[in-house]
């Protein structure tokens, strides 16, 4: 009976080896997947046990981890939380992470590959794992001004450095304070979150990049103009600009804002049409150019592409194979054309930067806990949307808008400002969205801005981009220029 016992012992050895293999699979080979599983609360507990790195704006921490005496060890603390909520997002033991708290999580909690040496150092020094600090491109004073200007109107403001793509300001309104979701009292967090969710003005949505995209209205005429310049049109090329334009294949017509007449003899230059934002001229121009030409130019500026800044930005949309009437409507930024405020800021920034659109980014520098630089974002060309001469011509036309057109409310004394208004229809019974996109100074652009105020903001039905959005853009640009003068931009 010895032989079968020997064989049995081999079988037992195989059984135990099977168990060891299973253990290795769970604890080492597949451990990462299991640890990343959102149902795994251990990861959260362990993360809270570590020092999570801060977010830094203008050299000061705006979000940090405060040591506390509870099982989580640290309390995520947000100074002036609502001002930066759109960028930082929240870090909650109940609802997880959003925005940069999510995308930069591995750097913040110290587990990123790039922090390997820091971790090793901590290990040898017997110290706890330390997260990296994330320095943002945002400027506190620009955030402040943009938020104050928007007030309690629904909308968003995005400001970019046209030459680098740095996001200088990103404000969405209404917003929320991440502090209310960072508490370690789960019942309280639950209640606060449900309250935010229940509100019909969606404060948790980042309107600047990820809300429902908006019809860009007349700001889209910049795309038409860019396409026209490329197609050989000059700023003084005469366009057909009737009081009413028949929409081919329908019984409907397009008129101008307030039914106004663009020109006495039904023709006007491209430059003037942009200056006074003549709908019929651009609708006709769109049909003349063909939709495919306008579509390509829109894509040159980033439409239909989703990017990560590193927050993921909703792709701006274009109509699918529109007929002639739909092309006419699309050319004035209606029908199925949609854009995020960031996309419109990128249009302004691209024109400002001689036709080159830089890739927008929010994270400037990542520093390990010992302050050594782990990563610096280098400016990167995103798209070459226009050639230099066309961009300069369009800039001059946009200066006309602010000098003597629909955008005079954005004038800044002693500085040439380039801008474009937009008043986007949203339906029969709802007031229009007010848009303004601009940059300054026109000859050496330092800051490009896009502003949207939903449904006319405080003035409702009477709102226009020029009246509601332009003053906000003006204030933001002015603050940007002040920072630049101090060498802070």
């Amino acid at each position: 009976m010895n032989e079968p016992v020997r064989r049995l012992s081999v079988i037992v050895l195989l059984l135990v080896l099977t168990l060891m293999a299973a253990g290795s699979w769970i604890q080492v080979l597949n451990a990462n997947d299991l640890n990343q599983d959102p149902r795994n609360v251990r990861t959260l507990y362990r993360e809270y046990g570590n020092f999570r790195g801060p977010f830094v704006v203008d050299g000061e921490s705006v979000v940090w981890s405060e040591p506390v005496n509870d099982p989580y060890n640290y309390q995520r603390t947000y100074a002036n939380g609502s001002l930066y909520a759109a960028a930082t997002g929240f870090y909650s033991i109940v609802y997880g992470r959003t925005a940069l708290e999510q995308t930069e999580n591995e750097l913040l909690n110290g587990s990123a590959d790039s922090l390997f040496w820091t971790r090793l150092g901590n290990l040898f020094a017997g110290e706890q794992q330390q997260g990296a600090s994330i320095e943002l491109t945002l400027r506190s004073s620009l955030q402040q001004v943009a938020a104050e200007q928007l007030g309690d109107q629904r909308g968003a403001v995005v400001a970019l450095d046209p030459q680098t793509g740095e996001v200088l300001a990103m404000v969405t309104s209404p917003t929320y304070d991440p502090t209310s979701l960072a508490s370690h009292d789960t019942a309280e967090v639950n209640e606060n979150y449900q309250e935010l969710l229940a509100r019909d003005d969606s404060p948790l949505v980042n309107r600047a990049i990820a809300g429902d995209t908006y019809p860009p209205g007349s700001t889209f005429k910049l795309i038409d103009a860019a396409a026209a310049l490329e197609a050989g049109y000059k700023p003084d090329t005469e366009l057909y600009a009737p009081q009413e334009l028949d929409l081919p294949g329908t019984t409907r017509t397009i008129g101008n804002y307030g039914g106004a007449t663009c020109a006495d003899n039904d023709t006007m230059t491209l430059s003037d049409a942009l200056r006074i934002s003549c709908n019929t001229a651009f609708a006709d121009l769109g049909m003349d150019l063909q939709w495919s030409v306008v579509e390509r130019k829109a894509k040159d500026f980033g439409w239909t592409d989703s990017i990560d800044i590193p927050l993921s930005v909703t792709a701006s949309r274009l109509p699918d194979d529109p007929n002639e009437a739909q092309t006419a409507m699309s050319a004035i930024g209606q029908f199925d054309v949609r854009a995020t405020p960031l996309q419109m800021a990128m249009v302004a920034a691209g024109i400002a930067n001689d036709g080159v659109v830089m890739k927008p980014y929010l994270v400037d520098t990542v520093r390990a806990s010992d302050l050594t630089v782990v990563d610096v974002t280098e400016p990167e060309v995103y798209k070459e949307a226009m050639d230099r001469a066309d961009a300069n011509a369009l800039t001059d036309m946009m200066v006309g808008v602010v000098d003597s057109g629909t955008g005079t409310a954005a004038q800044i004394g002693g500085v040439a400002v380039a801008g474009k208004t937009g008043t986007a229809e949203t339906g029969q019974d709802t007031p229009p969205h007010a848009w303004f996109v601009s940059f300054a100074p026109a000859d050496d652009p330092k800051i490009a801005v896009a502003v949207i105020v939903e449904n006319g903001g405080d003035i409702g039905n009477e709102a226009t981009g020029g009246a509601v959005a332009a003053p906000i853009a003006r204030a933001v640009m002015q603050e940007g220029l002040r920072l630049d003068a101090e060498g802070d931009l």
Partner: protein
Amino acid sequence: MATVADLNVRAGRRSELALLGLAWMVIVLARALVDYNAAFLELVPLAIYGAVWAAMMIAAHVVLDKVAPSADPVLLPAVFALNGVGIAEIRRIDHAEGTAFADAQMIWAALGVTAMIAVVLLLRDHRKLRRFTYTAGVVGLVLYLLPLVPGLGITVNGARIWISVFGYTAQPGEFAKIALVVFFAGYLVTNRDTLALAGPKFLGMRFPRPRDMGPLLLVWAAAMLIMVYERDLGASLLFFGIFLGMLYVATQRLSWVLTGMGLFFIGGSFAALTIPHVRARFDAWLHALDPEVYSSGTSEQLVRGLFGMASGGLFGTGLGEGRPDLVPYAESDFIIASLGEELGLTGLMAILTLYLIIVQRAFRTSIGVRDGFGKLLSSGLGFAIAIQVFIVVGGVTRVIPLTGLTAPFLAYGGSSLLANWIVIALLLRVSDMARRPSEEVA
């Protein structure tokens, strides 16, 4: 039949003492770590704890030295180490949950060691057990089926493998295991020649004669009964697996094993398809991470265990520094996951290796002992531990469906601990005979 591999071994009592010293250090250090990490470290209770373990070890060692001087020297230290590590982990979960399982388990450990000593003292020759072959068979079967008695059996987690008497609960299957090994050993050593007779040839293999199939079918029927009515795949698999292993050792016929496995597979598949509880366990096993299965709760415990083990990684979080308390039944059914989390893959491997050592020592004993009954008894007991470990650890690591059995010596539970200490007593007794120099054998 009594083939003897001549063993020329040192008794090894001194090695045993040294190994026991090592086990003692592991046990006391583990508890010190657990208490330290819970900010609960007090020196006097720790000293008392160390003294109690030392007393148990010395008592066991001295008794063996007197009445079983040639007994295997590795078994005792390995079992003590497992028992102590188990209690440390249970105490660690007590700290997190405010329970007092570790103290209760300590009492059971003391009772287990006492029972072990008693068996070694009272049973001077394991061959006497052969007289009780059929008694053991009946006792084993009754114990196995006890939970089915209305008013006595209770259902825990869907499986009915517990009984409750005057508020005390027990898992009679743990004791049934021993009685059945005794029965199988006695029965098979008598009937092995008949069972080994060649029958029809099929697929190039000689199968047993159909008329000899009776006992196999009977045991299979009993195993199916346990699976269907106690709704526990583990108890059923353990019971049937012990029988198949011993049948193989007795007859050397692989065809028996294949026939038996085929039968069990058919019965198991049938149960998996028709019995909701068994089916749920299968679902939870196959689709553990599936959100639907997880949120229905059937695989939640299993998956939480996996999360725990994953968070432990290669070296573990350290005793007292993980969160094993996030897994339900972390101190009993899932103690392997708790240990995997805090001691890491390294610790898990060490524990599995300790089990492997115990089982291999049992097999070594089986090879060394002269009488057929002793061979079957020791290999059967060793194999029982092996299958139980495989069923438990395999269940927690998703190799097989999860069942209600617990890890021998580690998991919280009096019946299991007591029964397994008795298993060790029997193994020690047989090993003493196996390793005794030839001339001394009566």
